């Protein structure tokens, strides 16, 4: 199978998925609001006049801005589709690079690797829904290729890949760090001395610095800090880093087959699976596959590359588990999934020398599972987009735009559609668009919503039933005295009848209660 065929197949799958679902993940709208403000001359900000770094990915905000500039008439839809095309191409490039890597590594299963990558539902979904995942996968695959197979100017390739990762997400530094560490640990049989590896990393680091430094300086000068406010807000909600906690989490990941309470469960699962509606056996399958890939490093029979990547996967799963437990946000997972698929297909490639029939059976099962999930996730995403996102959250945003008065503020968790379409000043939780929320949380020394609402006194609250219920149980006067219920937006009766998996995600956003402040 030529690389070009792989690239075109992956591109067609991603674009076909985009055409079928028309998916727009809500975080795209958070970022795109800044892109649009930049193009309209208000600066790279979420709220004009407030210089807050409300996006995580520089590429994810600047590319849509460029797409909007070239879109005829400044049409948002056209800008989105151009961005989707770029992102889907990056995804296809990632798959093609993994195929080349698998072929070069002597995997008889390079085709399996390519097929498994292009049918991973999360990767496809997040490569077309406005997120930066396609680019992250591309630079990750480029990094792996540069590290493991590039023979000429590998330092330059590696440096460009690292620079690209940093432009894609600042937490790309995690990928870089764990891969460097893993490579050092398993490089004994690599044919390159530790000094040579060190020199390579140093050179690549210099290239990466040259590539990323302009953005780093720009962000520092423009916003007063190079750290995105999204990271500050999330870090405030998550808490501090504890060394022994990290070690314990790593041990949990390594033994996750016994205690499946880690991000391993989510690795091969669709987006937001933790909200329910998927078969209960699926997380167990996912946890088992992840565990196999994450502990492959202990087996000396595997090549050093596979062992290094396996160790690297374990560290990435530790990072995700430490901060998000079993339920990391979906866009964090495609990177580790790509690495896990590389390991699993490599294992299957070796297994075929032992038992071709078993290899074939496992291959069919892996691909069958991936294809099935891709189809199911496409069905789910189509419904989510049409009925929940555009049929409910966008409608709420527009209703607030029409019914709020200038200067009103709004508190809620789901910032994307509500923030974009209402145009209101937002106090979102955990405060990605709002330094006020982070300040309130620090002042009250809590992330409990009741305290934040009492401190911030927003004009509007937009709450899911579970959120309203939580507040009414702990501080009832907020909803009975300080606010009055204005309206309920509920599409659950339409969505509930539909025959799709993953209904937990749909149920989560099908009902919202709007409250307006009555207390002074």
């Amino acid at each position, binding site marked *: *199978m030529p690389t070009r065929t792989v690239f075109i197949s992956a591109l067609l799958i991603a674009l076909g998925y985009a055409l079928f679902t028309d998916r727009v993940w809500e975080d795209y709208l958070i970022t795109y609001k800044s892109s649009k403000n930049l193009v309209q001359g208000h600066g790279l900000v979420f709220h004009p006049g407030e210089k807050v770094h409300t996006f995580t990915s520089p590429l994810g905000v600047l590319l849509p801005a460029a797409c909007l500039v070239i879109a005829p008439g400044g049409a948002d839809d056209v800008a989105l589709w151009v961005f989707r095309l770029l992102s889907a191409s990056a995804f296809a490039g990632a798959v093609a690079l993994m195929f080349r890597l698998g072929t070069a590594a002597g995997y*008889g*299963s*390079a*085709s*399996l690797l390519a*097929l498994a990558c292009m049918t991973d539902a999360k990767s496809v979904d997040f490569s077309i829904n406005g997120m930066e995942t396609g680019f992250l996968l591309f630079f990750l695959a480029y990094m792996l290729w540069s590290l493991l197979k590039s023979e000429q100017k590998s330092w330059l390739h590696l440096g460009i890949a690292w620079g690209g990762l940093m432009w894609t997400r600042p937490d790309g530094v995690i990928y870089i760090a764990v891969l460097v560490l893993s490579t050092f640990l398993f490089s004994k049989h690599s044919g390159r001395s530790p000094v040579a590896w060190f020199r390579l990393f140093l050179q690549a680091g210099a290239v990466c610095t040259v590539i990323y430094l302009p953005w780093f300086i720009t962000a520092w000068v423009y916003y007063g800090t190079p750290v995105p406010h999204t990271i500050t807000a999330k870090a405030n909600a998550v808490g501090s880093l504890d060394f022994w906690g990290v070690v314990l989490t790593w041990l949990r990941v390594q033994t996750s087959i016994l205690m499946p309470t880690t991000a391993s469960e989510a690795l091969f699962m669709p987006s937001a699976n933790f*909200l*329910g*509606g998927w*078969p209960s056996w699926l997380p167990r399958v996912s946890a088992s596959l992840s565990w196999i890939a994450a502990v492959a490093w202990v087996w000396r029979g595997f090549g050093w590359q596979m062992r290094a990547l396996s160790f690297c996967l374990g560290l990435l799963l530790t990072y995700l588990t430490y901060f998000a437990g079993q339920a990391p946000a979906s866009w964090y997972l495609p990177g580790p999934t790509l690495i896990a698929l590389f390991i699993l297909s490599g294992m299957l490639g070796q297994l*075929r020398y032992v038992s*071709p029939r078993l*290899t*074939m059976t496992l*291959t*069919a099962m892996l*691909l*069958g599972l991936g*294809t*099935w999930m891709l*189809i*199911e996730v496409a069905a789910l995403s189509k419904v989510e987009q049409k009925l929940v996102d555009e049929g409910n959250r966008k409608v709420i945003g527009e209703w607030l735009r029409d019914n709020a008065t200038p200067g009103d503020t709004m508190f809620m968790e789901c910032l994307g559609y509500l923030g974009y379409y209402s145009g209101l000043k937002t106090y979102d939780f955990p405060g990605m668009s709002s330094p006020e929320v982070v300040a309130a949380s620090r002042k009250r020394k809590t992330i409990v919503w009741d305290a934040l609402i009492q401190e911030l006194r927003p004009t509007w609250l937009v709450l*899911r*039933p*579970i959120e*309203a*219920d939580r507040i*009414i*149980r702990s501080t*009832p006067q907020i*909803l*009975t005295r300080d606010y009055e*219920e204005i309206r309920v937006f509920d599409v*659950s009766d339409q*969505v*509930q009848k*539909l*025959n*799709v*998996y993953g*209904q*937990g995600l*749909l*149920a*989560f956003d*099908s*009902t919202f*209660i709007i409250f307006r402040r009555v207390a002074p």
Partner: protein
Amino acid sequence: MNRLLVPFSAVAILCVIWWRTTSGTWRLDRVAQSFAFSHFHMGHYRLATGSPEGAEASLRLAIQAAPKSYAALSQLGLSLMRQGRFDEATQCFRDSLVLEPAQAEPHVELANIDLQKNDSASAIQHYRAALQVEPNEISALNNLAWLLATTPRSSKEEGNESVKLAKNALQQAPDEPLVLLQTLAAAYAASGDFSNAIATAEKALAKATNEANQQLVNTLALHLERYRSGQDLRGN
């Protein structure tokens, strides 16, 4: 192997399509669970904000989606109780207990309904059942203590038990709510310990006066008078 991957993938896709077209009913059962969760919270929120009718509607949707949700059945019972539909509420609490016997709340509410019907014997049974599941359930402790201390023909042993229950209830509430002090005073009297009954009632009376709770001040004054004359609230 590479040559076989394409036909294998094609077969896998066909299998998925076949499965999708034939497994609808089973999947719809799973679908419902997710929505039950949302409806349940909506129902609880409505109940807490004084809209039992709205709560009933949401909770019925939750139960329709997940018929085995004992918590939703229990909440539905509460919403019906608040609408004065005691027989339907009783049925909901009983159904909830069939699904999950280890719950205190439905027993407490069944006991409260029994009290509405002046069936104190059955109420005592339900409070005892609630305390078997949750020994520190404060309303069950207080109400059972009150019943044992005030029901005519109850024994001195029951009076002693009442003291134990009332003390336990007070331990769960460090701010010593008036109603618990009132119960403890009645319990002491039922056990024959009138000096403690008088002391506790005086403490409650002072607190009620301080809180300007005139209705309770009047009631406690009457109780205090009885204790001072060596009478408990059972009429003994």
